[in-house]
């Protein structure tokens, strides 16, 4: 075996314990695996399975009061756990870099980010403070931060979540480590930036012969970038398989469970909660919806939503996708009148919601429900589940106390939660369970329509599968219609009949899931789909030749461009796009599109559709 083939990292029987003696728990217990040069290994596991603890332990660290109680972590043949502190310190940050979760917490709140990156660099390189700052500027530029000369002087609290994430990445990479441990490094980033970062890391690993240990919650990341997948269960590796094998024939029950939807879809199974009657009268119809938010101390407004038309048939799921800030959530909130629309009409059945008096609107709410993104925040932690579920029944029904109780138990059974938990409080229940409770509360009054505002975005892969199953089942059994708002195109594909793509408050493309996902026409839809990481190792992004990307930043929703909103970033833009406002046009195949070049056939197909997923 030559030196190049020797494992870069060899972990044997690594254990981490919290507490001492008999009360000690071991989130990591007998962890063993190897990592070679030029390899990207992904680690997946349930929420709370100890993935982050494992990542830290590879550095020879444990979050206090935990401590490493045994095992070996051999990096290039030397056991990190047997080293003295100074030798270990020299390896940390220089040879092994780490990107942790909660980037804002990991940055020192008292020091400018440039100083911190400089300090990390100077801890391993002969450099003075000026060199450190120059290095920090270079690194910030490398991770795609605009105006790095100014940002080096920012404090952590002055950065957005995504920006802090990138600053942390810059610090981890400042000494060009041979091994990068990345714990969900892209969780705060938009899909396009996520893809850019992972592309860059993949390339670095291939070119420099380094390696990456990637903790991921998203199957898409594993499929697109990892060479091998490790499944962490009960503190040790339960499955260790090459990526294609993992996705084709998962061995563990856990792996089979999280991949079930993907395999169903690949085999052409039911991709949604049932079929929709063709030509049915829509249940919900939005026409010309406009929502502006005034800016304090200015006559200008934020145009969150601009001229949106949507129709949802009974029993149908419409997906609403787009980057953060595209106005998806605002559309959902306007729909149930949680925020008052500035203009446009929202019809539910045969009634116009906009004209309704407050009491009538409250009554309508029984039929028109919403489930929010954050399951923790949307349930009162001080209330028992019994009381949470009784609230809508108190408001909208005339049931007796006993009937309400039995209805609550029935609801819990419908969403797959043990009715024996009815006197528990939300505290201590997992995110997936809480989201089920939110859904139970939403369906308590027999609604016919539910807005689902990113209900799966904080869930673990297994909980996502469970929730998608549940939503499909409820749709089949109760004939519900959904507006499913999400940035996760994978879940949208599992759940939706039709999909609408939003950009800067407008719908740019609308059609069936098959139309939009397999043959996107609008340049923005194309870019969004190209950046999305589908959990299919047969279509790896890194194997693709052309990775279409949008350039530049999203324009401000305060000073919107005159013509096409995408013109400044669009790879197919022509000069006239800058001046020409775009209309949503219906194409012969039934989809709508907001791009005059596509609508008039000016944008030819050969300009890059073949590589689309």
């Amino acid at each position, binding site marked *: 075996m030559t030196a190049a083939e020797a494992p870069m990292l060899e972990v044997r029987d690594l254990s981490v314990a919290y507490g001492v003696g008999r009360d000690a728990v071991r989130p990591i217990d007998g962890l063993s695996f190897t990592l070679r040069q030029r390899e990207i290994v992904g680690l997946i596991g349930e929420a709370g399975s100890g993935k982050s603890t494992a990542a830290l332990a590879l550095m020879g660290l444990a979050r*206090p009061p935990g401590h490493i109680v045994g095992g070996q972590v051999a990096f290039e043949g030397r056991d990190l756990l047997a080293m003295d*502190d100074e030798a270990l*310190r020299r390896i940390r940050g220089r040879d092994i870099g780490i990107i*942790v979760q909660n980037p804002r917490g*990991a940055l020192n*709140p*008292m020091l400018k980010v440039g100083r911190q990156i400089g300090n990390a660099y100077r*801890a391993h390189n002969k450099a003075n403070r000026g060199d450190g700052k120059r290095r920090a500027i270079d690194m910030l530029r490398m991770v795609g931060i605009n105006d790095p000369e100014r940002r080096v002087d920012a404090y952590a609290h002055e950065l957005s979540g995504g920006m802090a994430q990138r600053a942390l990445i810059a*610090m981890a990479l400042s000494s060009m480590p041979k091994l990068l441990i990345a714990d969900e490094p892209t969780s705060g980033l938009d899909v396009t930036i996520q893809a850019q970062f992972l592309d860059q890391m993949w390339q670095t690993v291939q070119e420099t012969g380094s390696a990456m240990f990637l903790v991921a919650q998203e199957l898409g990341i594993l499929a697109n970038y990892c060479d091998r997948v490790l499944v962490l269960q009960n503190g040790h590796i339960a499955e260790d398989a090459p990526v294609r094998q993992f996705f084709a024939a998962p061995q563990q029950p856990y792996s089979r469970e999280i991949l079930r939807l993907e395999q169903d879809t690949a085999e052409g199974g039911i991709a949604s909660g049932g079929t929709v009657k063709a030509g049915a009268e829509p249940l919900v119809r939005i026409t010309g919806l406009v929502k502006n938010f005034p800016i304090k101390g200015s006559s200008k407004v934020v145009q969150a939503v601009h001229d949106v038309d949507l129709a949802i048939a009974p029993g149908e799921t419409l997906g609403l996708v787009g980057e953060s800030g595209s106005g998806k959530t605002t559309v959902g909130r306007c729909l149930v009148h949680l925020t008052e629309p500035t203009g446009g009409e929202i019809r539910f059945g045969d009634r116009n919601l906009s004209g309704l008096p407050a009491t009538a609107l409250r009554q309508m709410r029984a039929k028109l429900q919403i489930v929010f993104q954050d399951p923790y925040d949307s349930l009162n932690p001080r209330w028992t589940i019994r009381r949470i579920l009784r609230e809508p029944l108190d408001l909208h029904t005339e049931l007796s106390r006993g009937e309400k109780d039995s209805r609550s138990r029935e609801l819990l059974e419908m969403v797959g939660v043990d009715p024996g938990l009815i006197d528990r409080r939300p505290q201590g229940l997992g995110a997936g369970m809480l989201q089920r409770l939110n859904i139970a509360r939403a369906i308590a009054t027999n609604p016919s329509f539910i807005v689902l505002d990113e209900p799966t975005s904080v869930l673990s892969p297994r909980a996502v599968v469970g929730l998608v199953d549940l939503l499909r089942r409820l749709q089949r059994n109760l004939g519900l219609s959904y507006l499913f708002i999400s940035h996760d195109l994978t879940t949208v594909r599992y759940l939706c009949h039709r999909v609408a793509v939003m950009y800067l408050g407008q719908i740019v493309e609308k059609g069936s899931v098959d139309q939009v996902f397999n043959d996107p026409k609008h340049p923005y839809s194309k870019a969004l789909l190209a950046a999305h990481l589908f959990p299919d190792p047969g279509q790896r992004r890194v194997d693709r030749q052309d990775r279409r990307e949008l350039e530049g930043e999203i324009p401000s929703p305060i000073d919107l461009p005159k013509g096409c909103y995408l013109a400044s970033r669009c790879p197919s833009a022509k000069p006239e796009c800058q001046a020409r406002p775009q209309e949503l046009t219906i194409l012969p195949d039934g989809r709508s599109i907001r791009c005059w070049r596509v609508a008039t056939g000016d944008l030819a197909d050969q300009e890059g559709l073949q590589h689309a997923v």
Partner: protein
Amino acid sequence: MLVRYIATRLVIGVAQLVGLVIAVFFLIRLLPADPVSRLVGLNPSAEAYAQAERQLGLDRPILTQLLHYLGLAPEEGPGLLQGSLGISWVTGSPIVEEIGRHLPVTIELITLSFLIAFVLAVPIGMLGALKPGGKADRGVFIYSLFAGSQPEFWWGLLFVYLFFFTLGVAPPPLGSLSPLTSPPPEITGMITVDALLAGRPDTFVEALHHLMLPVATLVFILSGPIIKMVRQNMVRALRSDFVLYAHCAGLPRWQVARYALRAAMAPSITLIGILYGFMLGGAVLVESVFSLSGIGQYSVRAVLSFDYPAIQGVVLIITGISLLIYLALDLIHAVIDPRVAY
């Protein structure tokens, strides 16, 4: 930005003081006390009583008295606006002068005590935090429990017994200087400083010697809470994500310690400032034990003799100083922690 912030705070501070002056003015007069009879003694004649009342100005309507006190009726004599706190009803001398004599004694005492307590307590608290549950940590815990559980005058007396009476290393608790030494010319009112200004090193040393026990008593009392606070904040800082990440980045140990200390200092500074403001009036027991005529002693005397102008003056001055200290603290806090915005 900074100047505007300070200016705003000062304006608000002055408004608070005005409110306080007026409130105290009325509240004192609600006391079930009769300062006039206190002055003229028991069983005075009606004329003597009336004359004393006129002398104190208490015969006039209360609003007139207030206007006079605030200095809004300058034809009747100087008030606050003219920089006068009035004349003491007991001694007949101006309050400004009396406070000017007593306040520096206390300031000297507690400033020195806080400096020493700070210098001692911060490293000790840090040590405790670096090894929570270690020997040093447990020792400190027992000490702070012990020191804080008994009143300061008791410790003062014990110290006097031990260091003066038994060991003889400290001077008797009879004031700032031995009765035979003539005090240096008064410039700041703080004897140590005045001695240095007058070029009298022997007096300076003697003053320090006399301050030894009262300062030791206060340091002994104050160190407990400061150590606890520093330790607590340091433990929290050491467990924070950014310290963990500093280890991940391979920063040298001293630098990690600096990251943590800075995070721990900000809240500790606030506590120290609040304690300082509190001790301005609260050092009275220690002052009594060591016969130091500080502001605490003065205010107790003023209250006991119903010397309204003196009470008002003390409250006003101590509050004013406290407000300035809080302002300074907020500024220091903002320097340490950039998240604090002006």
